[in-house]
Every structure is written in C-alpha cells, then in structure tokens.
C-alpha cells in the first residue's frame, strides 16, 4: 500500500487552476522527485499535501487514512513533515534550540514538570539535547550549536531547516526546493545530506527546480506542467521525453538533444 495517495487533487485560486486533478502516489521507502517549470504548481501541490492550503476538491490519504484539510501540526505529529523553499528557521534562537523545537512532539514533560524540575523533565531534556546534537552532526552543523541561527553562513541556513524538520522524526519527508539559490559546492553538500536521510529509511518527496539535483537522487520522477501531471518515469525516461524537454527545458534544448 502506498504511503501517501492524492486523488483528483484540485486547487483553484480565483480563476487560475493551480493544481488540476492531480493523482499521485508515494510508495514507502522511495525518493520521489516532483519537477516542472516555474508556475507549474509544484509548491501549491506541496502546500496542499502538507496542510498549508486547503484543496478545492479531491482527497489525500496517508497510511490508508484520509488526511484532507488536516492542519499542519496534526500532520507533523503523524510523521508527515516538510521543509520550506525560502529560508525558514527560528533566527533569534541558537542552532541547538532550533533543533530542540523540532523535538517538541517527542517530549512528554510539560511546563509543570519543568517548574518542579521533575526527574522525567530532566531525563527528557537530556535525551532531547543528545538527540539534537546527533542530528546537528548528521546534517553537518557540528560546532554551530551555540550560535544564533541567523548568524549561520547561507549554505547552512537551509541545512538547519532540514535539521529542524528531521528532529520531528518524519516518516514522509517533503523537501521544497532544498537546493534553490545555492552554489555548486553547497548543492553537493545538500545532496549528500538528502542521500543520508534517504539511507536512514525515510520516504522522501523532493520538489526541485534544479534538474541536476533530482537526476542525482530520485528513482522516480513526476513532471508537472500547468497544474497537471505531464508524465511519470525514471530519470532516464524523463530526460529523453520530448514533451518534458519542450515544457521544461525549452525547444532549443530539444534541438540540441536531437543532435547529440
């Protein structure tokens, strides 16, 4: 059974159909790429799945249960967690506190336990901190834990966003253009991090503008154009599909590819 299923997902903004009757399945353990030119509706589809926008019609189910119109924090508690395209961190807090906030769902002791400094509170705080340090090391943020998040170098800002999401313990991890705005070196690093996440058996959906990142990571790719699914296939098929080349890479590229 698929981990996530979208059926006839539809979203209209005024007169604009942003997502048009999209059917989509994500299988457990895979790393699925979602690509498409600017304005294809990738981010809208992403927001529908993660509960940040309500769909106009259609349904979404996760682990066999319907989750359409569930608020994001409920989805997060079930292991459906996203990152954001723009830099999304808690800027004034330390890197460690950023990741600790991600552990919110895994700490049972509340405010009163903290007030009376109960043993459970101390144990859970220590566990959460250990875990946060481990995650920080996993994504390559070691040594920055004490510093304010806003002082991180640009390339590490998005890494921190991934670390926060990772700390929630996702089952299905949705990444929105993790490599956008990055230079080649930073891109390489983020691809490595994503690969490590995939290897730790987390199912991934990767929305990406950058072909090289998707081609590098994904085994299956869905191409979106004008809100609808254009085609689906492995990187090889997608790269050589004439429709994809036309809408995504432009007609000039088609000619160039033809001569190759």
């Amino acid at each position, binding site marked *: 059974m698929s981990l996530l299923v979208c059926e006839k997902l539809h979203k209209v903004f005024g007169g604009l159909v942003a997502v048009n009757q999209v059917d989509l399945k994500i299988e457990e353990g895979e790393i699925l790429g979602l690509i498409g030119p600017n304005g294809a509706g990738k981010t809208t589809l992403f927001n529908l799945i993660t509960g940040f926008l309500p769909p106009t019609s259609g349904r979404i189910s996760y682990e066999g249960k319907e989750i359409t119109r569930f608020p994001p924090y409920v989805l*997060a508690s079930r292991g459906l967690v996203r990152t954001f395209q723009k830099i999304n961190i808690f800027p004034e807090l330390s890197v460690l506190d950023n990741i600790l906030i991600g552990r*919110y769902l895994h*700490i049972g*002791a509340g405010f009163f336990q*903290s007030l009376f400094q109960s043993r459970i509170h101390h144990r859970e705080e220590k566990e959460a901190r250990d875990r946060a340090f481990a995650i920080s090391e996993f994504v390559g943020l070691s040594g920055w834990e004490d510093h304010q998040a806003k002082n991180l170098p640009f390339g590490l800002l998005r890494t921190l966003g991934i670390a926060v999401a990772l700390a*929630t313990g996702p089952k299905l991890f949705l990444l929105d253009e993790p490599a956008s705005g990055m230079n080649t070196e930073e891109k390489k690093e983020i691809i490595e991090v994503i690969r490590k996440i995939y290897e730790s058996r987390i199912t991934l959906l990767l929305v990406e503008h950058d072909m090289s990142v998707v081609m590098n990571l994904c085994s299956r790719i869905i191409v979106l154009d004008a809100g609808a699914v254009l085609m689906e296939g492995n990187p090889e098929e997608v790269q050589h599909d004439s429709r994809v080349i036309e809408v995504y890479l432009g007609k000039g590229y088609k000619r160039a590819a033809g001569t190759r």
Partner: protein
Amino acid sequence: MIRNPGKNLLILFFVLLVFLIPVLIKDPYYQHILNVVFLFTISVYGLNIIAGITGQFNIGHAGFLGIGAYISALATNSLMLSFWLAMPLAILGTAVFGFLIGYPSLRLRGVYFALTTLCFGEILSLVFENWIPVTGGPTGISRIPAPTSIRLSEGISFAFDTKIGFYYLCLIFVLLSLYINRQLLKSRLGRAMLAVRENEDLAQSAGIPITRTKIIAFILSMMFVGLCGSLYAHYFRFISPVSFSVPESFRQVTMLFVGGRGTLLGPLIGALIFTALPEVLRSIEDYQWVVYGAILMVFIVFLPKGIVGLIQDITETLRLPRNGNREQ
C-alpha cells in the same frame, strides 16, 4: 548555553544583597520606590510571556492589571475576604478574563490581537471610570486593607503593612516570577512559545499547535498580571482608573522593550529604569509621555532586543568564528 562555575556564586550574592537592601537603605522614600519597582517587575514578567516570549503584542496590559486590582479590592472591601483569598481570586479572575479575550483574538495572525487588547484596555478604563456603584468611578476605591500578617507561632509573625514587610512579600513574588520565566524557557511549552514568535509556519510544521500555545501563553501572562494587580491594590491601599489607563500600558511595554523582551533579566531592568525615571522627570511631568514615546521608538528602531539583548548580541558576535566559516 554557557556554563559558568562562578555564575551560581554571583547569583547567590545578588539574592543576598536584595534581601539586605531594606537594612542598608533606611530612607522610606527609596524603600517605596523599590517596592514600586518590584510591583512593576512582576507585571512586566507577565507581559514578557505573551509579548516577549510568544511575540503577541498586548497593548491593554494596564487594563488587565486593573481587573486584578479591582477584583482584589472588592473581594476584601465588599466581600470581607482576607488578602490571602482575594489574591488567588484576582489571579483566577484575570486569567479567566484573559482566556475570554484571547480565545477569539489569538486565532488570527498579525495585528488583530494587539488591536483587540488595545480596545479592551480602553474599554476597561472606561468601565472603571463609569461603573460607579462597583468601582467607585473616578474616585476609585480607598481604604483597602494591607495584606493580613501571617502568624507562624507566638512571637513569630510577618506583617506586611510596613514598607519593609511589603518589600519582602514582593521580593518573594519577583523571585518566583523570575524562576517561573526561567523554567518556562527550559520547557517544551516555552520553546513552543519562542517558536511561535520566531516563525509560525515552521512552528506548525514542527508539530506545534500555535493557537493553543498562544492562548496558554496569554492565560499564564494574565496570572502574573492578576497577582500584580492584587499586590498593587493592597500596597497603595487605594486604586483609581488613572493607574490602569492606556498610557500606563505603554509605559509597561516600554519597560519590556528597553529591558529586553524575551529575556530573563529584561523585565527587572526595564521596571527599575522606568520607575526611577518618572521620579527624575517629575519636574516636567506633563511631557513625560513624550519622553517615553521617544525612548520606545528609539529602542524599537535601533535596539529591538533592549539592553539585555544588546549585551547578548555583543557576546555572540565576539564568539562567532572569524570569516563566518568554521572548519570542523
């Protein structure tokens, strides 16, 4: 977090110092000022939870302070309850009121909460002024009893009708407020509040229910305000609508901003500065609000994190690795 072995010793020294202050400062005028500083400190710690830590601006703070004060004053004067019953009643009443205001207005993002609280601040001061049978109108309520003394056994009792007695009562509550704020920041609830302030979208996707977190923050904040209102009424033994007007709210917002919002010592520092300042500015009393307004603006623009925030930023900058790049 920086662990410092000398830090605990330093804290101990300061706690000892504040306990000895009434012995060192004999002038009743200064003792009075210190008591007022402590009163405002408790209130600003409350404001800190909702505006400083959770980032939701409450601009009707003084109005809510009035609720606590009037509940407590009415409970002792009309219902003939002891202060020790009136105080929890004031805390509870203010918290319930906070829930009623916060529940609808905190569901919306943006300025709606600030606007709602501003309006309620104004409405409340009108109510205090015009609901004469209950609040006494502009003349307020007088002859409020001082907190009843506590007698532990024959010969050992604590009285709070003197300035020194009240100082210790307030001091205990100030330390308690400080402790509660500190433990809050160390708990998952406190971190959730910070997350809501910093980035609501990211907070949500980390599994934090933002509306619920904001409402809890506001109720908690209102409990401090209720406590302060009660102490205020029984310290001055007289309350009138002037003390709970909208400008008073802004004064407390200024205290929080200048001291450092969301920090542990900010409220204390802010309350200290802005209780002392009116005494200094007494000769130009008519213009004091202009001075506050100017100070608030300067801080919001240039030092949005206040005095404590500035110190934290300087130490952070000094600790930053050079060239912004660190080898692992």
